[in-house]
C-alpha cells in the first residue's frame, strides 16, 4: 500500500508567502496568501497557472514561477517543466500548423513530433493540397534532426517517406485519382517566440514513385506556428 493516499500533490510554502490569484492569469487580483511553512494541495494546472487549495480550504491560482519556490514534503525544492528557452531546447512533444505550397498547389498542413533526444525527433504530418488542376492529401512519417536545439534560431534537416493521394479536378477529362508512395528530404528552421510557442519553416523535396515510366519530383514549402509540451 502506498504511504501517501493523497489525491493531490502537497507542497509547502518556503518563501515568505505565496500569492493566490482569483483566476489563471497575471491580471487577476491576489485575493489570498499562504504563509511560510503552510501546506497546500495542487488541484490542477492550466498553462502557467496552478489551482491550489490550502489546508483551510481556500482555493486560488498560483503562478508557476512562485510555485518553483515551494518545497515538497521532504523539503526538496519543487521543480516543474517551464515553457521557456530550456523547454524549447528539450521537450517531449511538439505540434504545429502550416500554410504553404506543394507542387504549385496551396498546402494546409499539421504535424506532431515526438523527441527521441533533444536533437532527434520522429514526425508525422498530414497535409491537404488544393490546386487548379488537382486536389489531394499527403501523409508523411520521418525523422528530423535539429542541429543546435538550444539556439533561438535553430536549423534542422528531415528525412522520411509517405503517401500521396491525388484527385484531379472533375473538369479534366480522363483524369484518374492516384495513390503514390513518396520519399522526402528537407531542410528547415525553428525560431523561438516565447513561452511554448515557436515558428517553423520547412522546404521538402518529394520523390513520388508513380506507376509511369519515370518518378516525379515535387517540391513543398510550408511555414507556420508550433508549440512544445
Amino acid at each position, binding site marked *: 500500500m*502506498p*504511504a*501517501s493516499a*493523497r*489525491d*493531490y*500533490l502537497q507542497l509547502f510554502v518556503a518563501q515568505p508567502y505565496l500569492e493566490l490569484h*482569483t*483566476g*489563471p*492569469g*497575471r*491580471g*487577476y487580483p491576489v485575493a489570498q496568501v499562504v504563509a511560510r511553512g503552510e501546506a497546500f494541495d*495542487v*488541484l*490542477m*494546472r*492550466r*498553462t*502557467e*497557472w*496552478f*489551482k491550489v487549495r490550502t489546508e483551510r480550504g481556500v482555493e486560488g491560482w498560483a503562478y508557476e514561477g512562485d510555485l518553483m519556490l515551494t518545497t*515538497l514534503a521532504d523539503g526538496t525544492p519543487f521543480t*516543474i517543466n517551464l*515553457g521557456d528557452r530550456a523547454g524549447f531546447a528539450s521537450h517531449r512533444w511538439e*505540434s504545429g*500548423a502550416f*500554410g504553404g505550397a506543394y507542387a504549385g498547389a*496551396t498546402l*494546409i498542413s*499539421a504535424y506532431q513530433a515526438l523527441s527521441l533526444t533533444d536533437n532527434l525527433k520522429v514526425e508525422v504530418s498530414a497535409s*491537404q493540397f*488544393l490546386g487548379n488542376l488537382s*486536389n489531394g492529401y499527403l501523409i508523411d512519417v520521418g525523422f528530423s534532426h535539429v542541429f543546435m536545439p538550444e539556439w533561438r534560431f535553430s536549423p534542422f534537416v528531415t528525412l522520411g517517406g509517405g503517401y500521396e493521394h491525388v484527385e484531379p*479536378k*472533375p473538369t479534366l477529362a480522363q483524369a484518374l485519382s492516384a495513390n503514390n508512395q513518396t520519399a522526402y528530404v528537407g531542410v528547415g528552421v525553428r525560431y523561438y517566440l516565447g*513561452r*511554448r*510557442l515557436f515558428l517553423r519553416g520547412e522546404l521538402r523535396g518529394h520523390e513520388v514513385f508513380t506507376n509511369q515510366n519515370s518518378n516525379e519530383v515535387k517540391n513543398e514549402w510550408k511555414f507556420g*506556428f508550433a*508549440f512544445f*509540451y
Partner: protein
Amino acid sequence: MEIRLCILLLSFVALGSSGCSVFHRHPKPDQGAEADSNSESMPDADAPPPSVIEPQVERRTVKVPTIHPSNVELGAYYGELSIQDFGAQPVAGVRLDYHISEDFFAEATYGRAKAGFTSFETLSNIQLISDAERRFTYYNLSLGYNLLPGEVFIGRNLAMTSAFYMIGGIGAVKFAGDQNFTVNFGAGFRVLPTDWLALHIDVQDLVFRSDVTGTEELKNNLQATIGATVFF
C-alpha cells in the same frame, strides 16, 4: 647567528627531503575501508558491518501524486452561417482547443452547413448546383490570442473568469463540387462557469476564392455561433 641560520636551512632541507609526505592526510576511515575491501589481504571486509539493531521495518513506497494538466478544450457549437450568394443557414461544428500559454491557444474546428438558393435560382427556377453539392463543410487550423482576459460577475456572489479573444488561421471549404483554400479570422468571448466548462460566443469570417456564381471572386462567409466546451 650562524647557528640559527644553519638550523633554519637544515629544517628546510629536512622538509624538502620528506617531500609531500609531510602534507599527506591520513585516509578517512570509510576511504580506508574501501581501500581495504579492494585488497585481497582483508577478506573480512566484505562482511556487513555489525549492527546493533536489525530494523524489521518494511520500506514504504512513497507515490507522489501527479498534477493534472487541464489545457485541452473539446466541444461543439451551433449558429448561423451566411454563405455568400446562397443565404444564411444553420451551421453546427466541433472544436478542439489547446491552450499553449496564458495568452495563446491553438484551435481546430470542423463545421457543416447546407447552402440555400441564390436569388437567381429562386427567380429562374434553375439550379446552379445539385443538392449534394449544397453541403458546405469546412475545417480550420487557427491560432487564438486572449486579448482581453477578465471576469464576469453575476450578482454579488458569482464571479466567472472570461476572455475576449481574436482568432485567425487557415483551412479548407468543400462546397459546390470544389474544395477551396480558406482563410478564417474572427473574435470570440469565452466564459467559464466552472473550471472545466466554458461557454463561447464566436463571430468568424471564412474567406475563399470561388467561381461558383460565374466569375471568380473572394467569397466572405460570416458565421455567428454559440458553443460549449469541456476542459480536459
